[in-house]
């Protein structure tokens, strides 16, 4: 229900404008100048991809639901707007965020089980024992002011489909786009229903002809054009021809009727494009090494 998001701590306390967010991060880095210059880190989106991958690794053997992984990603992102990452052991934060997220999303995991799994995955750098996760949980909750309820676009998307149903393949693609948006700052910038609309728009415009789950930047650019300039015969020169054109016309009508904030959707789309552009540079090993360097250098793994 919209009213519950409207009054939520997520909207009131954890949604920023881009300049606000940049400012928060700049202040944090400024307070740790030496540390920051001593230990350079990859692009935040690549780091996020690294965290997402580690969450997957941890969650898979425990069969953790996607929604809990998503909540954990948001907890990590929020936490690092409050605490300089180079002051923490990120793998401990990852494990703890998942532990906490599982409780909030009603699929709890025993702390010992999770700790054992973390130890197995990261013998040198992960949390050494359950009590470390327990302690980090206090830090995580305190930094988030106990504001742990997260509204996700998944539920919005289900609701939105009562007025604009997606085909199975569109739905899958939209679902994947929502999964991807957790790698960006979008969850701190926009309301979940807006993210859901963006994902639906992209899914319809892109048509998942390719089975790859990565969406090509070029295609997204087309989608963007279609949106901002509906008269420019969207899709006419793309695959699908007339059918897709009708579908997109319907989409545009629906958007107009739902009085969605087109500008914000365009903004979300752009964030996603640049995510897909930077994605190629992702290298797990580089991320790991850069993180390990400060963790080891500062003795944070102990």
């Amino acid at each position: 229900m919209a009213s519950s998001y409207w009054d939520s701590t997520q909207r009131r306390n954890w949604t920023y404008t881009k300049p606000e967010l940049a400012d928060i991060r700049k202040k944090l880095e400024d307070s740790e100048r030496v540390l920051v210059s001593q230990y350079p880190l990859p692009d935040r989106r690549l780091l996020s991809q690294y965290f997402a991958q580690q969450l997957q690794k941890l969650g898979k053997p425990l069969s953790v639901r996607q929604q809990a992984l998503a909540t954990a990603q948001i907890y990590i992102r929020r936490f690092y707007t409050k605490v300089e990452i180079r002051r923490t052991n990120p793998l401990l934060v990852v494990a703890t965020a998942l532990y906490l997220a599982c409780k909030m999303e009603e699929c709890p995991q025993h702390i010992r089980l999770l700790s054992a799994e973390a130890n197995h995955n990261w013998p040198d750098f992960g949390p050494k024992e359950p009590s470390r996760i327990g302690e980090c949980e206090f830090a995580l909750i305190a930094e988030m002011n106990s504001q742990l309820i997260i509204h996700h676009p998944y539920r919005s998307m289900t609701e939105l489909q009562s007025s604009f149903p997606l085909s199975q393949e569109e739905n899958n693609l939209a679902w994947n786009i929502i999964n991807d948006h957790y790698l960006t700052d979008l969850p701190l910038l926009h309301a979940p229903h807006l993210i859901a609309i963006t994902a639906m728009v992209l899914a319809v415009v892109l048509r998942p002809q390719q089975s790859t789950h990565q969406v090509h930047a070029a295609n997204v650019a087309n989608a963007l054009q279609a949106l901002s300039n509906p008269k420019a015969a969207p899709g006419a020169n793309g695959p699908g021809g007339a059918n897709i054109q009708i579908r997109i016309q319907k989409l545009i009508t629906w958007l107009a009727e739902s009085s969605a904030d087109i500008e914000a959707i365009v903004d979300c789309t752009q964030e996603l494009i640049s995510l897909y552009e930077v994605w190629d540079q992702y290298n797990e090993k580089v991320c790991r090494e850069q993180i390990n360097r400060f963790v080891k250098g500062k003795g944070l793994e102990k």
Partner: protein
Amino acid sequence: MLSGYTSKKRVNERYRIIGFISSGTYGRVYKAQGRNGETREFAIKKFKPDKEGEVQYTGISQSAIREMALCTELTDPNVIHTVEIILEDKCIFIVFEYAEHDLLQIIHYHTQQSRKAIAAKAIKSILWQLLNGLLYLHRNWVMHRDLKPANIMVTKAGEVKIGDLGLARLFYKPLHSLFTGDKVVVTIWYRAPELLLGSRHYTPAVDLWAVGCIFAELLSLRPIFKGEEAKMDSKKIVPFQRNQMMKIIEVLGMPTKERWPLLTAMQEYAQLQALGSTMRSSGRTRTLKDWWQTTMQNNQYSPGQGNSPGDEGRDLLQGLLEYDPQKRLTAEQALQHPYFTAGGEADKPSKNCFGSVKIEYPHRRVSQEDNDIRTSSVPGTKRSGLPDDSLIGRPAKRLKEG
């Protein structure tokens, strides 16, 4: 972390403990006053680690996490306000606004001390405020699940506030059954019939049944369905709550499949039928009308003297104590009921349940035996066997989003 977790806020720096109020299900509740010129009073609920004397962090229980998250999320005039939450020294302190009274105390006062019924006007105000708080919770997808007089707080100013969100849940999340391996969750006297008959699905309607029970209790000053709880046997098989169901039937009569179409699909339907036939043969079933008349007489509610809940009151109670959860009034519908809306300005529910008549209800008892919130070693009794905390008998299974 570099040097372990240390709290940025300290309970003792911010609050002066006046005394100890109660040992709750999970920890202890203290009365406190603000420091630094803050004169308001507070109730601080302290959660302790599960094991006594635990020196290590063991992870916070799921129900404590839920309660913390819900308390910070919710703000409504008719829901107890959470001022802040402090995590310090492996303990969690939830700081609430202080409420001098609760409905259990008030009912006690009327049965034990004044020996007079609660004024009809006061009851209307209480119910109005309670339903408004509940409407807020339900609009935000929160089910309380444990409404009872002890959990309904009343401030000095006569504001009614729903308290103890310890069992509350967001109902768009998957809800694991209340029943698996679970003993004392919802107080049985206020438990809805669909739960007694084995429904595994919680809906907000369970809270409205409880409101109905509370309404009745405010009028008659005793629990309307005061059953005895059947305990779980050693195999952790949840028993049919025969006695509680019987108490309900004694007042409302048997539920019928005509009024409640899904009745025959309930897990305990056979048990119910058996119970029904024994009760019929001994002629022990009545209707709510009988209960109502007796209560009006006993407690001397009379329309002539302007002190009566009226026929509208009876109709509202009937709508809340509706067997079929799908037909039961919602909080929104209840608030639009003629009981609240009919009549002139003078009949409208007041925001102060004490109104102009000032009854001197006794203050909440505060004991001095323990007022060191940080070192107290008296354990709280743990909420026993919440399935989601123990994880017993619930193999991790893949739940696909959908």
